């Protein structure tokens, strides 16, 4: 009595803690996991458990949510906020998992003032005060094979960090004015180079659609191919490192990513 099914599930998930079999899943299927220190592993487990317990996980099209899906997605999302406050995903209410590529319709911004309503095949979507949509086959593939600079979970959860101040402008809440000023200067400079097709090899052209997508793509590369980003855009790497309070290039040095 006086406890909803959802609250009971949440309580039971916290009581069970981060299970050993979930750790085995990360060992086997999350390439980034094996780069973490013991302290980082413990923090990641705590953050991932909170995402699994606190958020609503839903499956699309009769698909069924499994522990594997929750653990692999939550762990990748948690990696972004290892150095940020625990409640950084307070804007995430639910996570909607599709088995494979989703086709969306309806008008949406193309950047530069253009709007399109052509159907579009997507791997993920993050809505302000709405769900995070993740395509599972891609999320699992990218978890298994890091180093390519593509990661749908990093991308969509970066949008959620960006949305914390109520806008998608490529600038998440920052610590102080000095950090904000440097962020705007560095990101604007690199973004404008990407827009004109001179952004180099690490940031793909989609980063030039708008500043929000720039931040999401830059986050993907920062965590998934950090050495390459540092080599090509050192100042951008530094401002992202200051924001996330992590140095993934140093972590990945033994692998040369």
């Amino acid at each position, binding site marked *: 009595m006086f406890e909803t099914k959802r609250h009971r599930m949440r309580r039971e998930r916290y009581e069970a803690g981060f299970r050993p079999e979930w750790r085995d899943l990360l060992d086997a299927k999350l390439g980034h996991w094996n780069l973490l220190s013991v302290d980082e592993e413990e923090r990641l487990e705590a953050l991932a458990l909170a995402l699994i317990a606190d958020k609503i996980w839903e499956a699309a099209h009769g698909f069924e949510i499994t522990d594997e899906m929750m653990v692999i997605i939550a762990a990748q999302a948690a990696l972004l906020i290892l150095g940020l406050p625990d409640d950084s995903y307070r804007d995430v209410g639910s996570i909607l998992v599709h*088995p*494979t*590529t989703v*086709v*969306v319709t309806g008008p*949406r*911004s193309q*950047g*530069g003032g253009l709007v399109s309503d*052509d*159907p*579009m*095949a*997507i*791997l*993920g*979507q*993050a*809505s*302000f005060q*709405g769900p995070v949509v993740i395509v599972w*086959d891609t999320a699992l*593939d990218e978890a*298994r*094979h890091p180093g390519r600079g*593509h990661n*749908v979970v990093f*991308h*969509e959860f970066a*949008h959620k960090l*960006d*949305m914390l101040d*109520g*806008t*998608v*402008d*490529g*600038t998440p809440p920052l610590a102080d004015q000095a950090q904000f000023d440097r*962020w*705007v200067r560095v*990101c*604007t400079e690199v*973004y*404008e180079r990407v827009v004109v097709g001179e952004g180099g090899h690490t940031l*793909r052209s*989609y980063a030039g659609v*708008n*500043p*929000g*997508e*720039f*931040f*999401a793509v830059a986050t993907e590369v920062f965590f998934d191919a950090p050495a390459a980003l540092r080599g090509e855009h050192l100042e951008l790497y530094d401002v992202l490192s200051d924001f996330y309070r992590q140095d993934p290039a140093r972590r990945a040095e033994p692998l040369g990513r």
Partner: protein
Amino acid sequence: MSDGASPTVGPGILPRDGHHLDETGTLVNDAQFEKVKTGSGFIAALDQSGGSTPKALGLYGVEETAYSGDAEMFDRIHEMRSRIITSPSFNGDRILGAILFEMTMERSIDGKGTAEFLWDDKGVVPFLKVDKGLADEVDGAQVMKPIPDLDELLARANGHGVFGTKMRSVIKLGHADGVDAVVGQQFEVGSQILDAGLVPIIEPEVDIHSPQKAEAEVLLKAAILAELGALGSDRHVMLKLTLPETDGFYTELVEHPNVLRVVALSGGYTRDDANARLARNHGVVASFSRALTEGLSAQQSEAEFDAALDASIGSIYAASVT
């Protein structure tokens, strides 16, 4: 960021790179489509299933006494296919695509799904064999047995990044009813495959030993052209055909706007015979199974194996690019 663009609270979207939606809303992998349509090379058929596996293993030097039961047999055939696929000579430079058996698709190579490994690491477009074998002969032809759970299989194939499918029927005589039954069924199932976003390889094989091979080929071409004429302009199929008695007989199909590519099966011809016939049919590329693995042996050293496979691939490639 201060870039002149207005901030928004609209959704952040991650589009699927390298794909587009065609007029029917089907997701198409641009690079795979272009490679299959215009690339040079051939299709490697690595799709032996239960019935043909012992034969394929025997030719590879693995006798039936070397394994016990189906599970071990499929382990051995997967080892053979993995050895072929991971060989340095097996890559997208000379090989357009590879046709996989379902169990191969569900297995891994170097820790990655076979289909994903083929495309990501080798640049080879993955296809999946979907038929369940042949029905008994009627009117000089064998249509396919029913394919239960095809939609579920196609969904799994999509999940693995498979581009297309292959299904085989056999025509043994120049009998119009038999040919029409085969072609009608192939295009009916092909339509289901197209609806799932995959490109079907339609394979109505004409038995090379048929006493009426040339007559059967005339009927077959007419039946295929009739079915192609009923397809919408954005519906593309591939055709896998027996090398014809008359050189260039299928040119009309090669040039048809609904046909992405015409490939030829080796159908029991030796590799040299198949290559010679193929070279005389311009625009047709090979999709050989036995001819590809001819000369390969489990007992060969890695160097011997790679050299034999390289020579085999080289000869089939040369015949395919005429």
